[in-house]
């Protein structure tokens, strides 16, 4: 699962003028995918709560800026509990502190002990820098673009630095040295995801990218650069899947933004900068599904919802997303 926190509009991606920004999605991935062109998010358009809604298959309604777990069980809990999978088989790599509770819900029937491990690479890097040199890495430590100065208290099952060194067999100095050559927080996330795939080969891996949300600063050029980077990283993840023996030929990948961004035509917004109006463009996005059993080069134009994802994964992997609101997507089953 790859989600973008910080939706990208069609105008800058799949419309003719935007296609130059997404060569990898267009040329490498779509020909191998079933593409849902209208995925409408009817929930709250805030990144953490929307990503949590993707992970539970239900529209969560908690405060987007609070460090709270989702109310309903996450895909990780359904997967691990129903299929009796070990803790190391489900992981989340997420961009910022706000996402540290996404791996495990507050639901009594699931919750504690059934969730995914959560890695916040930027937090790990910040911790690594406490014992290493500092200034060369600051470009990787950008955090929440909507409220740049707010970082909720951590608490959850996020991995700490010493655990990363053990679990990923990656020394702090190697981690810091590699981080130095990366251009953005999302590149750091993908680097960690690759380490996870190589060392642990989890069956369920959720990567949330966030660079695109730089759009909140109102700088169109940085928004476009982030789309281009995200496009490249999606291509890299797919290539990595094909090159790792544990994954090649037996892995499905789903990619979707959490929602869109405001339209240029809505006077209540300011175009690409935010996702506050709730207009159709800010609610509508797309999803692509790839891998074994999924039809290639296929476009589905009917409406779907992001809450359909978890029940679809349930149907594919064999668990019952019993508390989710969505429906399995027959086009990929």
């Amino acid at each position, binding site marked *: 699962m790859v989600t973008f926190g910080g939706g990208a509009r069609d105008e800058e991606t799949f419309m003719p003028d935007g296609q130059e920004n997404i060569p990898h999605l267009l040329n490498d991935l779509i020909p191998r995918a079933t593409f849902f062109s209208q995925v409408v998010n009817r929930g709250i358009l805030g990144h953490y709560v929307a990503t949590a809604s993707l992970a539970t298959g239900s529209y969560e309604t908690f*405060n987007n800026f609070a460090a709270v777990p989702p109310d309903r069980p996450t895909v990780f809990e359904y997967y691990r509990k129903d299929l009796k999978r070990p803790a190391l088989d489900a992981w989340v790599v997420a961009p910022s502190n706000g996402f540290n509770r996404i791996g495990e819900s507050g639901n009594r029937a699931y919750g504690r002990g059934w969730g995914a491990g959560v890695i916040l690479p930027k937090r790990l890097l910040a911790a690594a820098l406490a014992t290493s040199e500092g200034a060369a890495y600051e470009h990787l430590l950008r955090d929440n673009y909507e409220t740049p*100065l*707010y970082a909720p208290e951590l608490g959850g099952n996020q991995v700490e630095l010493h655990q990363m060194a053990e679990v990923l067999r990656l020394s702090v100095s190697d981690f810091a040295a590699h981080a130095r050559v990366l251009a953005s927080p999302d590149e750091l996330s993908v680097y960690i995801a690759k380490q996870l795939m190589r060392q642990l080969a989890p069956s369920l891996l959720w990567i949330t990218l966030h660079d695109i949300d730089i759009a909140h600063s109102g700088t169109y050029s940085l928004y476009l650069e982030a789309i281009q980077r995200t496009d490249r990283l999606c291509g890299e993840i797919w290539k990595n899947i094909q090159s790792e023996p544990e994954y090649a030929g037996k892995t499905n990948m789903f990619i979707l933004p959490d929602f869109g961004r405001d339209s*240029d035509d809505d006077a209540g917004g300011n*175009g690409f*900068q935010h996702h506050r109006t709730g207009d159709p463009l800010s609610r509508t996005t797309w999803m692509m599904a790839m891998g074994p059993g999924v039809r290639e080069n296929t476009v589905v134009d009917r409406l779907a919802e992001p809450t359909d994802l978890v029940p679809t994964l349930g149907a594919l992997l064999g668990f019952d997303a019993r508390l989710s609101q969505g429906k399995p997507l027959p086009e990929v089953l």
Partner: protein
Amino acid sequence: MLPRDLKASQFDGYPPQARALAAGRVSLLQQLPLGFLPLLLREIIVYDWKFPPERSELDHQLAYLESRSAVERRQLLAGFEKLRLPPELEAFDWVNEPGQFSEQLTTHLWATLQIDAFRAAAIDYVRTVNAAAPHTPPIMPRLSMVALGKNVAENKYKLFRKLRPNGVYFSRVKPENGLRIMLDAAAARAQAHPAPYGHWYVDGGSQEPVASEGLVRFSYDSLVTARAALQEKMQKTFQSGIGPEAFRTMLARMRPEELGLGGAADAVLNRFQVSLLTEGSGTQIFSTTFVQWAAREAFRRAQPVTLLLRFAPRQRARPMNELLAETQRKPELDPQGSLVDADMGAYYTWLNQQRLAGADKSSFLVWFEDHSEALAIGPAWARGAESSNPVSLQDLVKQVS
């Protein structure tokens, strides 16, 4: 408290003109639903610092509501009446803190999935009230002029891509003295058609000297002290560990005096400049965002007939906390990225201009500063056309103004 319990004395804390406006209409305000009234009060409470068109619109809105029968009014506001609101919002001091009420209402509407119903009700309401508004054409055809790309030597980005379908693209413009020509044209319009807040010049760098006193003018650099003061307050507030809601409330309550903008000068403009920094996202750190947002807000609120914008290079992107901390005295600039930002900013400025009265007679000119590319839009220009004939910027300015 519910609206029906409202009393005139509860507006004693409002500024003078706002108090008179609200206290004189208590019987109307008592009849409005809770999902609507505080949003109206949010506008009334800042009446003293509103621009003339905003005052006219608010006056009209109140007059329109008063002119309807109780049944018609209920029908008009039915969408707001139907919203399910929690008791905490009833208990909130929405008379004195309508802005904070609005924040909490928005949070509640999103969390209860009522935001779409609210949005539909608001669109219907605005459409109906605007349809009944007197049609007042601008005092002269509106004109925006935009200079962008300062300090960019070479460019490979296709400029004006979103604007081209609407006007004529010129590829051989003589750029000599171009900015001065634009400044003089703006000043001349201000002198010929004086109007309060009718003519504006906003610069993303330092302000160029310009003759006319009738021109509202400020720049990103002219607000350097205010920006530094704001950033310091933001840092301190952050370090105190408060959450985002309290953070926004702190920004919303910011007064010009706190940012060194409280002199004897124009109180309305001071408030406006503070709002650019406290309500805009990114305006505190990126000059390109500042200029675009200033133009958007100027058109939305003051509806000037002349707007001259000059985009300047913004600082290069760095981690957000570092950008806010302004740790470097002379930050590294990003002229090429700024050009792309400004190109989109110019498009948004044209869109915002076209939302105002007299759009069919309005004109727009954007020029790649010190280069030979420009684009003109207006009643005198074809749409989607290109011209490779040599032309001076002076001629283009003359034709659009």
